[in-house]
C-alpha cells in the first residue's frame, strides 16, 4: 500500500517541480520527490541507499539549489515553452509509450528470491572498489570544475595570495 502512495507522491512532486513558476518552490518540490524516492527505495529493499538518497538528494542537493538560486536570483521566466506545445507532448508520449510498451512485460514479474549476496559494505568496498575510486575522480573533477567556473578572477586570486 505504502509503495502506491509513495509512487503517486513522487509523480505529483516531480510534476509540481516542473510546473511551479518560482525557482525556490521548484527546488522544494524536488526535495519532496527525492524524499519520497528514498521511501520507495527503502520499500524496494534498499535501506542503505535510501538513507543516502535522503541525506544527499533531499538534503545536500536542495541546499545547493537554494544556494544557487540565492546567488543567481529568482528570475520570473514564465513565458511560453520555446517549442510548439503539441510537439513536446507528442515526442514525450511517443518515447515513453514505446519504451514502456517494450519494457513493461519484461519487468512485470514478481521479484525473485534474493540470491546469496555479500553485504552492502562488501559489495561496495570490495566488489565495486573501482567505482568508488571513480567517485573520488568525479568529485575531484567536479570540484575543479566549480572552482574554475566560479573563482573570483584575477583580483580575487591576488587577494588570496596576499593573505
Amino acid at each position, binding site marked *: 500500500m505504502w509503495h502506491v502512495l509513495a509512487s503517486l507522491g513522487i509523480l505529483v512532486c516531480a510534476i509540481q517541480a*516542473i510546473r511551479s513558476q518560482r525557482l525556490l518552490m521548484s527546488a522544494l518540490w524536488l526535495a519532496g520527490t527525492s524524499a519520497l524516492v528514498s521511501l520507495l527505495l527503502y520499500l524496494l529493499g534498499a535501506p542503505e541507499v535510501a538513507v543516502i*538518497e535522503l541525506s544527499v538528494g533531499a538534503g545536500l542537493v536542495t541546499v545547493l539549489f537554494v544556494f544557487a538560486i540565492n546567488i543567481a536570483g529568482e528570475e520570473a521566466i514564465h513565458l511560453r515553452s520555446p517549442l510548439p506545445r503539441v510537439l513536446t507532448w507528442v*515526442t514525450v508520449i511517443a518515447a515513453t509509450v514505446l519504451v514502456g510498451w517494450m519494457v513493461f512485460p519484461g519487468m512485470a514479474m514478481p521479484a525473485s528470491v534474493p540470491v546469496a549476496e555479500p553485504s552492502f559494505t562488501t559489495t561496495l568496498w570490495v566488489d565495486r572498489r573501482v567505482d568508488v575510486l571513480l567517485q573520488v575522480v568525479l568529485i575531484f573533477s567536479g570540484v575543479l570544475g566549480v572552482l574554475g567556473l566560479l573563482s573570483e578572477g584575477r583580483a580575487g586570486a591576488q587577494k588570496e595570495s596576499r593573505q
Partner: protein
Amino acid sequence: MTLNITNVAVLVVLGLFATGFYGLLAVRNLIKVVVALQILVKGAMVALVAAGNLTGQLQAAQSMALTVIVADTIVAVVALALAVQVRRCIGTLDIKALTSLKR
C-alpha cells in the same frame, strides 16, 4: 496487472522519465533545466534498484545506486555553477537568451 511493488516502480520510472524530458523540452529557466535533469536521473536510479529487486541482487544494485547519487550530485553542482556564471556573465537564466551560437 497487480499493483505489486516492481510494477509500480516501473510505472514510476516511466513517469519520472516522461516528466524529466517534458521539463527539458518545455522549461526555459536554466536552473529548472537542472531540476529536470535531476528528475530524469532519479528515475534511472529507481529503475536500478527495482532491477536489483527483480533479480534478487539488491546489494549490487544499491552500490551502483550510491555511485549514481554521487555522480548525479556532482553533475548538478557543476551545472548550477555554470548557471550562476551564466547569470553573472549574461545577466539572465532564460535559455532563449543563450542562442548566440547557431547555424
